[in-house]
């Protein structure tokens, strides 16, 4: 508690929203690249433009949405999709917890309204501001709104473009989903500390893909990586 009492007081103002929006726009443009890819892949997977946009507008989590598209199938493995989305998003718990010392000063509406707009990029931006003494409590909302806006626009562009493209394999589009995951993995790679959890995830996924029906190997591999990381921690 003594830690939290030393935190600066923050406000929640229109100026804070505006500043967050302006400074969040460059990163929102970068996120838009993934949004276009998501839109194309969502339409290839059979989602209509409206459905793809609805997903981007209400879920607002890039990796989770792409993973849902990866799992999307005519049989609709609803449970697998929702559980995997939840697990891949568990890191948001930590990000929310990191905001708590400041955000506990805000009203519940401001706090939990802002929470919807948390994405990896604007969270990092906001944490940088808050830890260096900024009083703008609405910065997260402003920067998150910029990301939300560009994410939706990019999804529209991608979904319309994707609807005009025919047989996926003919254009190498079947590789795009694997490619975008490889690109994301590149960004998540954290050097030597990633080796043990990632290779246990990989081996678990490869083995269970052979023996467990459906796509559960994805979740099993991920959870195995988490356990190995917890076990390895501190070594």
């Amino acid at each position, binding site marked *: 508690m003594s830690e939290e009492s030393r935190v600066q007081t923050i406000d929640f103002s229109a100026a804070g929203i505006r500043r967050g929006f302006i400074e969040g726009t460059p990163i929102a443009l970068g996120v838009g690249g*993934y949004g276009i890819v998501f839109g194309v892949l969502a339409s290839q997977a059979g989602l*209509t*433009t*409206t*459905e793809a946009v*609805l997903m981007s507008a*209400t*879920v607002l*989590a890039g990796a989770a949405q792409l*993973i*849902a598209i990866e799992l999307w199938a005519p049989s609709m493995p*609803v449970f697998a*999709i929702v559980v995997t*989305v*939840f697990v*891949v*998003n*568990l*890191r*948001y*718990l930590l990000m*929310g*917890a*990191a*905001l708590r010392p400041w*955000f506990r000063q805000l009203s519940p509406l401001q706090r*939990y309204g802002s*929470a919807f707009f*948390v994405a990896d990029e604007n969270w990092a931006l906001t944490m940088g501001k808050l830890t260096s003494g900024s009083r703008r409590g609405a910065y997260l909302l402003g920067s998150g709104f910029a990301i939300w806006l560009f994410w939706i626009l990019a999804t529209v562009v991608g979904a319309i473009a994707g*609807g005009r493209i025919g047989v996926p394999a003919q254009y*190498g589009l079947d*590789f*795009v989903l694997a*490619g975008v*995951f*490889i*690109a*994301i*993995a590149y960004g*998540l790679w*954290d050097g030597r500390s*990633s080796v043990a*959890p*990632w290779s246990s*995830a*990989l081996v*678990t996924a*490869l083995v269970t*893909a052979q023996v467990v029906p459906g796509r559960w*190997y*994805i*979740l099993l*591999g*991920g*959870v195995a*990586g*988490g356990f190995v*990381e*917890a076990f390895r*921690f501190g070594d």
Partner: protein
Amino acid sequence: MVIDFGLDPVVVGIILAMSLATYATKAGGLWLLGHIDVSPRLESALKILPGAIIVSIVGPELANGGPAEWSAAAVVLIAMRWTENVLVALLAGVATVLLLRALL
């Protein structure tokens, strides 16, 4: 313009379930974690999950592929290293896949 405005109730249901699951994690950290302590060990495990899940998607997919897909995967990594731009990296990867599938 080909814009499909359709909405399938099942799809809408899945999307809403996904959004609830996601919002629970985003708001949950602000709410729940004020009341319980997260050990650094658990924190480290939660942080590794996205990478571990993505590796679990890509690994079996590449194992089912061939030299064209493997080379394209390498090209995506190299392009990311050079440009840090996902669209450029994907275009390079797709071009590699198409070229090698035509040649091999």
